[in-house]
């Protein structure tokens, strides 16, 4: 016997073939084990968010936005409480509609959670060899339900507190609490297994796996379209027959059951409570089944034709040379140095195969949705559209790769730095990778938008030419900022995918540069733009100073000259920084 064995406590004698412990048997998850899983998963989620500045910033911003709205919600609810107490039942219908809308929101979030990363086990080999899947699934269901408590309980809690204040009694809080609890429990118990079942279906189908990114993108765009373009009330109106009718309408009766003057039906309130109590175990069982369906599957992944796209197959009669790709060969024609072509080809291939890295460049597009909708609705292109296209193009060209050209390399950075590719080739390669595909598109878009907004053909051509300059210059400056302020830490985008965004300093400085550059160009070349910028700036000049339109032009000229001068300087800095970079 090994000496180390002496310190090991003897195991409890166990029959060879004992039946499994009672908590592992049966169809329902063990409550205590599921609670343990939920608690630890929540703790992990909080720690993960706290460790990632981008997510932390989003949580803080979201919280601030909610906090800003809460006093307004409280005041409105307080008025409704007073109205209800006076015998007018009109606000009851609004409260019921809000409660039912909340149910739909949690249901949708449950589906998203199940089909997304919160329907995954981070370490299945650890978890599923320690507990049967039912306990893990139960834990994740509970974790997701508890995770949405702040999003639902805080606004509804403030709302029912307002009702109580208006009614002059704390009683509305009792019904409100019951209604909110029933809302979260029943909606998550139904939505989460649906999401898990969808995940299982996608994993079993090669066709659905292939469609997944497209469907995901459509859902995200639709979500932001509805949110940013102000279509939420329209959607609620469209759903209102369902939201007001049974059984969703009963939730409102439950929530208002103790509110004086609300005239809520006690029968409907009891039905809502009873239905929720019945739905939770059914949804839990469905979650267990759906989890097994989603987790125990040999994925039918769409492996794509990545290798084939780069090289002829041997059957085609042409055996590719190792290290040779069509893209690399094509870029080799326009590059004097192989290092430049290699860096550019690798950057492009990585962006194509791991498009999550481009997520950060796509975010500003969401804010363009109202503009796109306006164009579609009115059939006219606003005069600022070509400038927006140019600004966004410069943004994409910078953020897509050069703004973190060192950090994006990940574990391959030592290989790149010790390769024969010089700092100049690394910078050139990144610039080529973004300018070649982005600049022509932005030029066309900018020119087309200029023409569509009523500008003369020559002016539109000028826009296109200016777009080429702005995008290229922007990419050079981004490379310098990326080399000076690299970021190596990634953030979790999904359960198994991380992306490395540019550093905050690089992001901020580049944003300022891009806005200044496009604004200066706009003021100098576009009468309308000049007037708009002047009307925005003139009233806000401090210290009693004044700014004429001619003065604005002079300032813009100074800024343009400074920024143009910054481009070659940035190029030199980027090359030097990459050439001399040392890993700390």
């Amino acid at each position: 016997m090994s000496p180390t064995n002496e310190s090991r406590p003897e195991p409890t004698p166990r029959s060879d073939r004992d039946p499994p412990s009672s908590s592992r048997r049966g169809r329902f998850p063990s409550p205590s084990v599921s609670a343990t899983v939920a608690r630890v998963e929540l703790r992990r989620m909080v720690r993960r968010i706290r460790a990632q500045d981008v997510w932390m910033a989003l949580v803080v911003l979201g919280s601030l936005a909610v906090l800003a709205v809460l006093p307004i919600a409280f005041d409105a609810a307080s008025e409704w409480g007073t109205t209800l107490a006076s015998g007018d039942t009109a606000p009851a219908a609004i409260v019921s509609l809000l409660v039912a809308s909340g149910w739909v929101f949690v249901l949708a979030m449950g589906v998203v959670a199940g089909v997304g990363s919160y329907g995954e086990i981070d370490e299945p080999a650890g978890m599923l060899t320690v507990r049967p899947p039912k306990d893990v699934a139960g834990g994740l269901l509970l974790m997701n339900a508890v995770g949405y408590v702040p999003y639902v309980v805080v606004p509804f809690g403030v709302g029912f507190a307002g009702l109580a204040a208006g009614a002059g009694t704390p009683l509305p809080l009792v019904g409100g609490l019951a209604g909110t609890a029933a809302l979260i429990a029943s909606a998550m118990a139904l939505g989460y297994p649906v999401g898990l079942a969808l995940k299982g279906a996608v994993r079993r189908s090669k066709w659905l796996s292939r469609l997944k990114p497209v469907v995901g993108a459509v859902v995200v765009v639709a979500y932001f379209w509805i949110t940013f373009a102000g279509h939420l009330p329209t959607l609620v109106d469209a759903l209102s027959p369902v939201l007001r009718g049974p059984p969703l309408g009963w939730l409102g009766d439950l929530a208002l059951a103790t509110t004086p003057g609300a005239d809520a039906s006690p029968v409907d309130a009891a039905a809502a409570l009873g239905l929720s109590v019945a739905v939770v175990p059914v949804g839990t069982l469905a979650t267990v089944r759906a989890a097994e369906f989603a987790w125990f599957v040999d994925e039918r992944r769409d492996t794509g034709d990545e290798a084939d796209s780069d090289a002829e197959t041997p059957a085609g009669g042409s055996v590719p040379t190792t290290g040779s790709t069509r893209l690399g060969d094509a870029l080799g024609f326009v590059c004097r140095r192989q290092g430049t072509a290699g860096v550019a080809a690798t950057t492009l291939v990585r962006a194509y195969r791991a498009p999550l890295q481009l997520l950060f460049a796509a975010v500003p597009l969401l804010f363009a949705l109202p503009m796109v909708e306006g164009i579609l609705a009115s059939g006219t292109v606003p005069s600022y559209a070509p400038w927006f296209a140019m600004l966004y193009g410069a943004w994409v060209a910078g953020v897509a790769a050069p703004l973190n050209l060192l950090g994006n390399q990940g574990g391959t950075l030592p290989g790149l730095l010790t390769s024969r590719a010089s700092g100049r080739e690394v910078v050139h390669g990144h610039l080529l990778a973004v300018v070649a595909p982005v600049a022509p598109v932005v030029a066309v878009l900018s020119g087309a938008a200029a023409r569509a907004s009523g500008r003369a053909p020559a002016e539109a051509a000028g826009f296109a030419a200016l777009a080429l300059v702005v995008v290229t210059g922007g990419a050079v400056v981004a490379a310098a900022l990326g080399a000076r302020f690299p970021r190596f830490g990634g953030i979790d985008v999904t359960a198994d995918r991380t992306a490395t965004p540019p550093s905050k300093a690089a992001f901020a400085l580049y944003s300022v540069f891009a806005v200044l550059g496009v604004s200066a160009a706009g003021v100098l070349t576009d009468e309308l733009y000049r007037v708009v910028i002047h009307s925005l700036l003139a009233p806000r000049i401090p210290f009693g100073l004044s700014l004429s339109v001619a003065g604005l032009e002079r300032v813009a000229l100074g800024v343009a000259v400074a920024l143009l001068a910054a481009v070659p300087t940035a190029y030199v800095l980027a090359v030097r920084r990459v050439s001399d970079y040392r890993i700390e």
Partner: protein
Amino acid sequence: MTDPAVVADGLTKRYDEKLAVSDLSLSIPAGDVYGFLGPNGAGKTTTMRMLTGLTGPTDGTATVAGAAVDDRPTLTERIGYLPADPPVFDELTGREHLRYVARLHELRPDEAGERIDDMLARFDLADDADRRIGTYSTGMQKKVGAIAALLGDPEVVFLDEPTSGLDPRAARTMRDTVAAVAERDVTVFLSSHVLSVVDELADTVGVIDDGELVAEGPTEEVKRRARDDGEADLETAFLDITEDEDVPDERIQA
């Protein structure tokens, strides 16, 4: 004679057109250390995933510690598994992670605490136990994973490359631990490319190549099979057995 701890009968796994494991049959006596060898991509991990219930076989059946591999409630109570990439949570500290695993096994807190402290000390992790696992080296994560795999007092423990990424001292501790576990009649299913570890610990060796079990027998016998000059050597045996793509039909039977 006690029942075998691991029994596989015609275990087969197919991913689309690719046959990962073909008609694998095993019978491992309780308390044995079974060294499972094979080249990269031979089907070792797939076999372990089938035996631990993580992956369903396309065909065939298997029982581990008397539990069918699709009977997860029973199976999870009787096995421990350390995959090649240790399944640990970066956001937790080493001690938190092990307490979590202990709670999942429903161990009594006092018993679990004592066992965790003992194992942490044995693996020289006591001083780092309250740091986040995300800050651990690969070897330290492997140690936490190994402790977690043994925490529930499994009847059969599956270890996939348990010594990879460990420094020589930690590798020695791991080998001693496996030996100590085996002496307590725990069956160890050990997959490793470090043949000296398998040679030292395994009672029986199975070699899988291209999804097929191509050799199996007591370690000494498998070694002798490779050379007739008395210089028994597991590495030579492994190379001989897996050398030819046309797998030898003849199996070494114990």
